[in-house]
């Protein structure tokens, strides 16, 4: 079973539209490839919006704990406040914890002379197994301000992976979160191939380079595709030259095409909505190249 992860240095590069098109092409494209999908962009889990799946399972996801002060036991001595490094203790007649600021370190619990503090696990969100028209989708929704998305990414990906292994699916496509932080690292770990979706903006090349540094750090073979390349052809050229110099293959150029947005509004992958559109044609070519590379990648 091969694992492909889609990444971008920054949000809004069209990564999810690419993932949705891949899901459609895997099922209805020239050489069908049964896939499992994992939406690891848990902070903005958008794949569900394009693929309109039916939810089959819902599981609560318990994240880290936060401290809670029992007002009946608190003597307002203030030791917790001087101990806390996250400015999470709010003084008052009895002290209380700001759950949003609390990092869950429990330092206050150990110093409280009246044992008024306990740690309570927080419901961070839910994860789901769903069925789309193109295959199973594992995804999650995190409540705002909840941390631990790295753990949730690991969980969603692991569930998707096990499902793929059990069901004999040859490929898993992970729609990764943007950036370079903990959730990205969790999404990319164990991938056989990464596809970085980049935009040819002045910022885009930096974002792409940072994403590539992350995949290089974990020795994941990486390809680049350019989205909306014709919005700034000189910028696209700059990215391509840089990639060429670094020995990184640019495997696709998707033109700026309003059909993509129209498809999104309709809740469809663009390749299903308008197969003849320029963007759909480019995505089909991209998909062919990526699947070739995924198979020729390396040992299982």
């Amino acid at each position: 079973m091969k694992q492909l992860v889609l990444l971008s240095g920054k949000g809004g590069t069209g990564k999810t539209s690419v993932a949705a098109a891949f899901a459609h092409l895997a099922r209805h494209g020239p050489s069908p490839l049964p896939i499992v999908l994992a939406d690891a962009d848990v902070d903005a889990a958008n794949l569900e919006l394009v693929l309109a799946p039916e939810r089959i399972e819902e599981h609560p996801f318990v994240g880290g704990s936060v401290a809670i002060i029992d007002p009946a036991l608190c003597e307002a001595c203030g030791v917790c406040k001087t101990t806390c490094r996250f400015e999470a203790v709010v003084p008052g007649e009895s002290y209380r914890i700001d759950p949003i600021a609390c990092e869950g370190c429990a330092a206050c619990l150990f110093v409280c002379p009246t044992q008024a503090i306990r740690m309570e696990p927080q419901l961070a969100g839910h994860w789901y197994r769903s069925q789309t028209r193109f295959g199973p989708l594992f995804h999650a929704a995190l409540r705002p301000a909840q941390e631990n998305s790295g753990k949730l990414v690991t969980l969603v990906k692991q569930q998707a992976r096990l499902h793929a292994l059990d069901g004999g699916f040859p490929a898993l496509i992970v729609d990764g979160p943007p950036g370079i932080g903990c959730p990205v690292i969790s999404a990319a770990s164990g991938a056989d191939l990464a596809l970085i979706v980049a935009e040819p903006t002045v910022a885009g090349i930096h974002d792409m380079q940072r994403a590539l540094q992350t995949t290089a750090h974990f020795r994941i073979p990486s390809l680049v595709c350019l989205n909306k390349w014709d919005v700034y052809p000189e910028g696209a050229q700059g990215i391509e030259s840089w990639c060429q110099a670094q020995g990184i293959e640019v495997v696709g150029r998707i033109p700026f095409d309003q059909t993509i947005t129209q498809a999104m509004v309709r809740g469809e992958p663009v390749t299903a909505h308008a197969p003849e559109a320029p963007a759909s044609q480019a995505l089909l070519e991209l998909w062919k190249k990526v699947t070739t590379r995924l198979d020729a990648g390396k040992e299982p």
Partner: protein
Amino acid sequence: MATSLALSLAADGKAPLFLDCDVEAPNAGLFLKPTFEQRSDVSVLIPRVEEACCTSCGRCAEVCQYHAIAVLGKKVLVFSQLCHACGSCREQCPEDAIREVPSVLGVLEAGPAQNGIAFARGMMDVGEPMAGPVIRKLKQWASPGDGQIVILDAPPGTACPVVESIRGSDFLLLVTEPTPFGLHDLKLAVQLGQELSLPIGVVINRDGIGDAEVEQYCGTEGLPILLRVPFERAIAEGTARGRTLLEIHPQMGARLRAVLEQIGARLGSPP
């Protein structure tokens, strides 16, 4: 959007302090073109165990909620990338065998940008998992002048780095687009803003590309739409080249000023 607002303020002689809090991908500098004059490493304090004093009692590993310190036989290992720098292990060590030493997570940079704007940003080192401390330090490090407005350009999403960025602000301006994706993300961001009790305003970017759902949602929730930026290929092309909205369409100046005035009015003070 944030950079255009900053330039608009600067044009009125109220040059703000601009903080690029998107420490995983700081880009605002490409638009505001700052010259960095100050630089400072961001570090957090992580534990170091003095082996001579350590009795391998295991208390540090027991109190660490992040499993960033492990006691294996007579050895104590510290895993800096798991450490949240809470200091609990040092506090709880019965032998006083733990000291704290700085560990670098990223860098802060500051300097003047276009039109008198004061600019500062944080940059996280690649491979470092925690953006929160870099943002927290950036906000402490770069202090505004007397009465100077601070514009914080937050990272996307609603996770910990976003909370860290917007905490302590007076107003939350959410930039969205009129599509199902935009609406989905907007709802989460609004929920977060409400949890933090922040007044919220909405900017609809790329107006006209999608549907009317965002507008309806704002109507139902009573969220003011402070600005609509029409969808135009010229804007997409200009932004790709590092030009701000204000530079592409100077006539947007009046509308950006109106946004700032509306925010000021909602806060009960002039912008």
